[in-house]
């Protein structure tokens, strides 16, 4: 028997999708039954009270969670987010319901033992409710009380050899695609770079000194499986400099229908015979491809690495051999100024361990943003406020045509105002004296 009537939440279970409401109900029932005979360290009915407070919020159309607080583990400025309910008498099980973020392994490779151990800790010392994974990629443990924090932290770090994730004005938990472990398109070892930078920037992860959050993400290729260029302040996206490698025999096999396009994806429906002109050449955003009936050619100088042709004919086309990454800076979600995609800063950078070249760029950006950034200002907003040109200057990056979306329309990026006689201002009346309309 449920503790509260939850008609509004129940409606969320009626759709065809998996429902978090069903999951929480399942956890509530499991905690009530307590098959392992655990000595629960926080109220057994926390999941039920969570449903209760959510139902109230849905009814009132306002939140009943207070914002933040002083909770954390000793010496860490992030990883724990204080949450208090503003109706503690009504819902005592979630009166204190703090969130713990745990760093996910690179590429999210888990052993079942790791997951079981994690759940064992959380069943005993937390609500048992998790979010796998939060938007930044961390393992999110939802709902515990302050006295449990140090215990949980000790067990995570000593027994499971895993650290807390990032929150607050910190470097957030870095995230990588599974990269070369499984993907032939990966242009560099994303998991290794993610791990190395996580280890190297421990201080930035745990001791907040930034104006606001800062996120790294590492995509092995422009397919962008972790969406680095949309979701991170500093996106490292794999790319290559030389030609896409073409196996002409395999191209012919695709055209002849001997190999399924897209590696057999989209096979649930008959899309008709594979048409290389329509499905590959005609889809190239820069029209850099040609098919003469027996030979496919690509003009590399015009290729923008959109990956469409490689994705469609993976056996015939392969990424080039001169590999590295592009760095894009300033993506963010729409809190201030609206959402922004990353802007290309470094078109090509070497990605060899120990990644000193990448770290040099990161640290120059941090130095600038820590000095100039306003409170609660993402680096993308600082860039917008102080100009992209300023970012080029502080990172010692020479301006080049690929820094502007349409070269020739904005030549000002190449010049500084004080280097141009008269600056950006001119006396129009004086100009008109000498030039008729």
């Amino acid at each position, binding site marked *: 028997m449920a503790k509260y009537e939850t008609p509004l939440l129940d409606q969320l279970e009626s759709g065809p999708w998996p429902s978090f409401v069903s999951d929480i109900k399942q956890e509530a029932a499991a905690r009530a039954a307590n098959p392992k005979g655990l000595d629960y360290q926080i109220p057994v009915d926390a999941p039920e009270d969570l449903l209760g407070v959510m139902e109230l919020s849905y009814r009132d159309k306002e939140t009943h969670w207070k914002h933040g607080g002083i909770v954390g583990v000793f010496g860490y400025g992030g990883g724990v987010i*204080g949450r208090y309910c503003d109706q503690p008498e009504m819902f005592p099980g979630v009166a204190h319901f703090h969130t713990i973020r745990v760093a996910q392994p690179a590429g999210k490779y888990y052993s079942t033992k790791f997951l079981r151990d994690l759940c064992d800790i959380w069943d005993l010392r937390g609500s048992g409710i998790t979010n796998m994974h939060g938007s930044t990629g961390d393992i999110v443990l939802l709902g515990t009380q302050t006295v449990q924090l140090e215990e949980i932290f000790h067990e995570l770090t000593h027994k499971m050899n895993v650290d807390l994730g990032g929150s607050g004005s910190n470097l957030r938990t870095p995230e990588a695609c599974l990269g070369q472990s499984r993907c032939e398109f990966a242009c560099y070892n994303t998991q290794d770079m993610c791990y190395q930078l996580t280890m190297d920037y421990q201080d930035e992860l745990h001791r907040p000194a930034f104006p606001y959050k800062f996120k790294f993400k590492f995509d092995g290729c422009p397919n962008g499986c972790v969406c680095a260029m949309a979701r991170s302040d500093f996106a490292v996206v794999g790319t290559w400099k030389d030609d896409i490698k073409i196996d002409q025999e395999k191209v012919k096999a695709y055209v002849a229908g001997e190999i399924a396009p897209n590696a057999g994806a989209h096979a649930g429906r008959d899309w008709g015979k594979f048409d290389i002109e329509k499905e590959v050449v005609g889809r190239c955003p820069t029209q850099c491809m040609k098919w003469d009936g027996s030979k496919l050619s690509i003009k590399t100088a015009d290729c923008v690495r959109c990956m469409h042709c490689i994705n469609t004919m993976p056996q015939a086309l392969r990424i080039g051999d001169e590999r590295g990454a592009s760095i894009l800076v300033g993506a963010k979600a729409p809190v201030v100024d609206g959402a922004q995609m990353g802007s290309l800063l470094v078109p090509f950078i070497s990605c060899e361990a120990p990644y000193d070249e990448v770290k040099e760029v990161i640290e120059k950006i941090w130095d600038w943003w820590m000095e100039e950034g306003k*409170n609660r200002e993402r680096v993308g907003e600082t860039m917008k406020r102080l100009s992209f040109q300023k970012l080029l200057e502080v990172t010692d990056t020479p301006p080049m045509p690929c820094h502007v979306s349409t070269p020739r329309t904005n030549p000002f990026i190449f010049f500084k105002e004080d280097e141009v006689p008269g600056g950006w201002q001119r006396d129009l009346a004086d100009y008109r004296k000498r030039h008729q309309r």
Partner: protein
Amino acid sequence: MADDKDIVIEFLKSKSAAKSKFYFNDFTALFPDKGPREVKKILTKLVNEEVLEFWSSGSTTMYGLKGAGKQSAAEGEN
């Protein structure tokens, strides 16, 4: 370093009537000759000595004197 720590503590005490939590930037302003990384070291030391403590909303972190402002006990936690 001891003097630097005193500057931070004095600043926090002088503002204690109005505010109990401060952004990192508020402290860099106290040390115009020092870079943010040096200021961070001073604050980290004070946190480790349990003189300061962090306050976090989840998205933003602030620093305050330990015990100042609303504490977890005031939220009904013991």
